[in-house]
């Protein structure tokens, strides 16, 4: 089991995109269902070999976008291209794309082996080639010993593996995964995340992964495309999306944050009794300040450009390695996370680096 280290491969992915070798290109795709705008002009590119996650709450349109790419839905407008071929005009069975379904969708009347062989059989792969490829695919997901079972006799995790093998055996250029881990319990999900990630890296297949679980998205992805109400909120590497969220929604959806309403005058932002230097024009602005960016002033010696402030500790919740603090800074409520230490109380001096107050904007108004 390997844990993902996303930054290196993310950089590689972004470079290949700028070099113009996007495997998949979604152009201005919109979808209406009964007058309801489910997707609003989504454009994005996926590089060959990339692990891109479509992240969003239910109703954000992430599954609809996946289904449009797979061919189960038609976009109302816009186009989908893959390696120079226009996909959205092709029926699903003519696209070199395979899907791992949320509920696995294994054929109940076929054995595990026959399920995996299905794609090869129906696309007229030479019969002599099939057993070896099926065995390979089953070995890849560690399901060789279940080859002759019916899917009904398998656990959820095992069905998940078969579904993966059934898709991968066709050597798709692009694998679509629709919340494939959501039906598994927490431990198994963690394990499958690791396996998925290493499989993807070993095979070099491009993964387009849909989830509503931000931790899963952070752990697996080269890049995350965050969707909100059918619109693309931000697309960036997990590190960037966490450290430099573009919008209030992104900052709040990915991790926890404090949103500061600030007034900027002559290079100084003021929010309540907090002031810090910024390089922005005068006016109203919003900032995201992560709880872990706030530290005790006494422990901020190494911090660049520290902004110090006094605040009262209202609540302290011990959670192992860290402590969650609820602070009151002259009526401004702040959440902070510091390394565990003895209980704090009353007025304390805190500090954050002005570079950690990230300017964010409100999401674009729908329509």
């Amino acid at each position, binding site marked *: 089991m390997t844990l993902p280290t996303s930054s290196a491969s993310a950089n590689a992915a972004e470079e290949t995109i700028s070099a113009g070798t996007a495997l998949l290109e979604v152009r201005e795709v919109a979808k209406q269902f009964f007058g309801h705008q489910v997707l609003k002009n989504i454009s994005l590119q996926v590089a060959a070999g990339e692990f891109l996650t479509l992240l969003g709450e239910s109703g954000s349109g992430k599954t609809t976008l996946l289904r449009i790419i*797979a*061919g*189960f839905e038609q976009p109302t407008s816009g186009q989908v291209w893959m390696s120079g071929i226009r996909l959205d005009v092709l*029926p*699903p*069975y*003519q696209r070199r*794309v*395979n*899907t791992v*379904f949320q*509920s696995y*969708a*294994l*054929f*109940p*009347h076929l054995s595990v082996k026959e399920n995996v062989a*299905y*794609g090869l059989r*129906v*696309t007229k792969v030479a019969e002599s080639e099939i057993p070896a490829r099926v065995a390979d695919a089953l070995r890849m997901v560690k399901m060789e010993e279940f080859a002759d079972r*019916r899917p*009904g006799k398998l656990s959820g995790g095992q069905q998940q593996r078969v579904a993966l093998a*059934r*898709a991968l055996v*066709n050597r798709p250029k692009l694998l679509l995964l629709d919340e494939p881990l959501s039906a598994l319990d927490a431990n198994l999900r963690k394990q499958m995340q690791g396996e998925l990630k290493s499989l993807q890296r070993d095979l070099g297949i491009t993964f387009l992964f849909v989830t509503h679980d931000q931790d899963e998205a952070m752990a697996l992805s080269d890049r995350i495309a965050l969707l909100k109400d059918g619109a693309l909120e931000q697309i960036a590497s997990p590190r960037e999306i966490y450290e430099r969220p573009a919008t209030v929604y992104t900052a709040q959806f990915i991790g926890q944050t404090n949103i500061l309403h600030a007034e900027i005058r002559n290079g100084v932002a003021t929010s309540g009794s907090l002031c810090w230097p910024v390089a922005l024009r005068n006016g109203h602005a919003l900032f995201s300040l992560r709880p872990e960016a706030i530290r005790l002033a006494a422990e901020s010696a190494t911090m660049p450009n520290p902004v110090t402030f006094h605040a009262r500790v209202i609540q302290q919740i011990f959670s192992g390695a860290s402590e969650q603090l609820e602070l009151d800074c002259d009526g401004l409520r702040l959440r902070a996370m510091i390394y565990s230490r003895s209980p704090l109380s009353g007025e304390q001096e805190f500090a954050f680096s002005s570079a950690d107050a990230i300017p964010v904007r409100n999401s674009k108004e729908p329509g």
Partner: protein
Amino acid sequence: MYSRAYKFVVSLPPLLWVAIFLLVPYALMLAHSFWLVREGVIIHHWNLQNYSKLFHNPVYVEVLFRSVRIAVTVTFLSLLLGYPLAYYMSFHAGPRKDILYQLVIIPLWVSYLVRGYAWKTILGSEGVLNGFLQYLHITKEPVSFLLYSPFAVVLMLTHIYTPFVFLPLYASLEHIPRNLVEASHDLGASPCTTFLRVILPLSLPGLLAGATFAFVLSLGDFLAPILVGGPSSIMIANIVQSLFGTAYDWPLGAAISVCILLLTVTLLYLTERLEKRWSF
């Protein structure tokens, strides 16, 4: 849990019902099939004469074969009509599904006899169909083979039993998860391949149940031959009916009934086993 007295009271009515209306009549029928009729009186003398009469008289064997032939044809035609209908409604009818379903079901509420007489009106030599054919100058004289022929029996039975084939088929098609169809397309199978490799195999239990309905019900039918069949399409149930009626040979009628019962029970047992094997 429940007391013994409670269980006894609850299970008594169905047990009594089965005993009085099924087991006792079956036992009487079986007993009669080994008795004799002499000069209009049933003699309680155990023997196998009825059965040997049955197998040595070519009339009975011929009628039995004809009945099976008609039942098989009806089953086949009902499937031919019912499957495409069920498939279309389940997969492609969209919002029209409910109204189409009602249209299929409504004829079931109409009396069997009414539908039989309707066919008489349509097929007769003065009937609607002949009138139409003559009006179009396709035929000069009324076509006579339409009514009072095995053709008419098959037509009427197919009309009556197609909904019986349709219902279990439709239920089993509705039961197929739609993402299996998507998965099949996703793996590169065309709609036709998907039908043959996924939808058809998964609908086999429903197909079998429907076919069993059509076969068993039409094998035991005696009204269609009376209404539209004529002498050339007498079926086995008509013989039983006349043996119990005008001919007054209950023992022979019982022997024939036992044979049909054995045939039907064997068939039901086999299809039950197949259905179990095909259900997932």
